[in-house]
């Protein structure tokens, strides 16, 4: 008997006296109707609690805010699908990561910052979800550089995790981000920044 057959047969044998399970009650909150201004306020509060820096801007201000956040970076990476109207026309510091022209891990390690968009954000838990779309890029680019600047369109913010889950394509490679990298392993004292980006700047964009 193969290991698989043996394990499945053991389970079936173990369960022979198991009662039929009841249905799963789903009385927890799955929808909400929070106004936009409150959603933004809640998300900002949660993100700042995680020690992320947050800007809330109107769409026309986005390019200047991005430029301001990236001003200290000597180089930064963007995914191939990023909206180029957000960026200055010519910038020698910019590296583009594209399918077929990916940056090596060493190149990423030598890059100061990364700019991405995001797929959906959960206000109640302060969580931003990246799903690997063209404007978010593959997982490594938002991981290796030490500084992550992340654009959050207001239309992508929901209040509850179940609302966000309904919008996610679960089969894409997903990264849920709630603040910068952190550890509490030494005497439970929280230290921001271990292996992932140590600085997370979030730009919430109204009208996007």
């Amino acid at each position, binding site marked *: 008997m*193969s*290991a698989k057959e043996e*394990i*499945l*047969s*053991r*389970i079936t*044998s*173990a*369960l022979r*006296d*198991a009662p039929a*399970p009841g*249905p*799963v*009650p789903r009385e*927890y909150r799955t929808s909400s109707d929070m106004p936009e201004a409150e959603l933004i306020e809640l998300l900002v509060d*949660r993100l700042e609690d*995680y020690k992320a820096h947050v800007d809330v801007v109107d769409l026309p201000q986005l390019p200047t805010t991005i430029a301001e956040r990236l001003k200290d970076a000597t180089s930064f990476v963007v995914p191939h699908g990023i909206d180029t109207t957000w960026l200055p026309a010519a910038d020698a510091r910019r590296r583009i990561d594209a*399918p077929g022209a*990916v940056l090596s*891990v*060493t190149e990423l390690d030598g890059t100061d910052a990364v700019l991405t968009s995001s797929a959906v954000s*959960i206000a109640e*838990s*302060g969580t931003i979800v990246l799903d*690997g779309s063209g404007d978010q890029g*593959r*997982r*490594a680019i938002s*991981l*290796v550089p030490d500084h992550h600047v992340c654009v959050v369109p207001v239309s992508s913010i929901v209040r509850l*995790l*179940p609302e966000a*889950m309904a919008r*996610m394509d*679960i*089969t*894409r*490679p*997903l*990264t*849920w*981000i*709630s*603040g910068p*990298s*952190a*550890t*509490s*392993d*030494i*005497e*439970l*004292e929280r*230290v921001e*920044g*271990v*292996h*992932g980006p140590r600085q997370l700047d979030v730009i919430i964009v109204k009208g996007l």
Partner: protein
Amino acid sequence: MSNVFMGMPTLPVFGDGNLHIEETFPTAAHRELGNTQMRANLRHATHTIRDKRLKVVAELPDWEELRDAGSATKNLVMANLPALLEEFEKNFTARGGIIHWARDAHEANSIVAGLIKEQNTTEVVKVKSMATQEIGLNEYLEEQGISAFETDLAELIVQLGHDKPSHILVPAIHKNRTEVRDIFLAEMPNVDPNLTDEPRLLAMAAREHLRRKFLSAKVAISGANFALADSGTLAVVESEGNGRMCLTLPETLITVMGIEKLLPGKEDLEVFMQLLPRSSTGERMNPYTSLWTGVTEGDGPQNVHLVLMDNGRTAALADKYGRTALNCIRCSACMNVCPVYERTGGHAYGSTYPGPIGAILTPLLTGITSEENSTLPYASSLCGACYDACPVKINIPEILVHLRGEDVDSKRGTKKLPSQMDLMMKGGSWAFSSGKHLGLLEKGLPLGKLAAGRDKKIKALPGIAAGWTQSRDIPAPPSQSFRDWWKKDHTPVAATNKQEK
């Protein structure tokens, strides 16, 4: 879904690995209780997490509804496990992942070692994982000439300190900052000799130490917090980004997971991702969660394996009172509220799984007849705090009592228990049948005081009464009985009262 059972029931096959404890809980606890530094560290840690947890749980108006959904989902998963496992395998495989099945710890270890050797490497990076801790994977790989680097800060502290984890969430909870600095100075190559004990600087030293390993590793090993059957998706929940490094950068990813970790689909994950971070670290959400479904072209590892492991889980599943222990999502909330764990620490439990959940899960996975493990269900005051804290409502106290019963039943006959018990009961019956008998026995009290010695404690009783002193000392009896004292002190007063009337 129906799983019609055909033929003879198979005997339960128990698990092995770091589950068999080497000494009884009372012996280990007695020693660990003497470590005052550890007790102070633990008290601070468990109280801090406990308070944080209560705060963030109180924020959710539907916490109890989430617990109900989580508990019912897990019961549903266990009842339909064979079908869900096959569904998961089909979907994970369809997207380029490869599944391996392992009956026990040895089989899982040898599958992983074989996969690493195929990649011609002798170094792997590892995300903290309870499953690989359970099977002793690091030790096995070392025997095979493969170095496995733990990348979680706490696991790194434990690994460099040649120590064992003492908590499932914060494995180095028993070490304070000074102890951590000393370990780094002694064991970490190229560390700054002026390293202070500030947690930030210690974390940065760990970052420096592991950075090259992450960027050059060809193979990574992880566990998994959840697996979704209807899409073939795996999920890892973490904080430091070391998980993302391991899951994203190497070409080969090998995940080891117990068969009980499945969820039917993503509408179940939404429940557990609300329950888990709040219960474990007391955060609204952990900094990073990674989800992957087989292989994604151009993003992350292109050679993706999953080892699905039994190792005693089917034996636990066969125990109809204990099987809900498999619903555990390894959040550690039960440990942080347990008065016994808080004082003895995780090492006293001797197994990968300490605390209240360990006291039931360990003997369920190995069988209660496994000698030392049979002492674990007694490692509890049965106060019930663990049941209240459990996000999936595992009734730990009830299972503890059930396992104590199993333990007594399994020893009946082998230790001639009834005859000693009969004698004691007969003696008791004689003593309490008349005041004269009891008075006669009480004359022996000073003898007890003598037996207690200078520290005024009786530490060992003979025969089956030894069970009592295994986990507690008896204070020395007083030099006179209450009745004697009353006679001496109160009779004259009573007489006076009578006269006044």
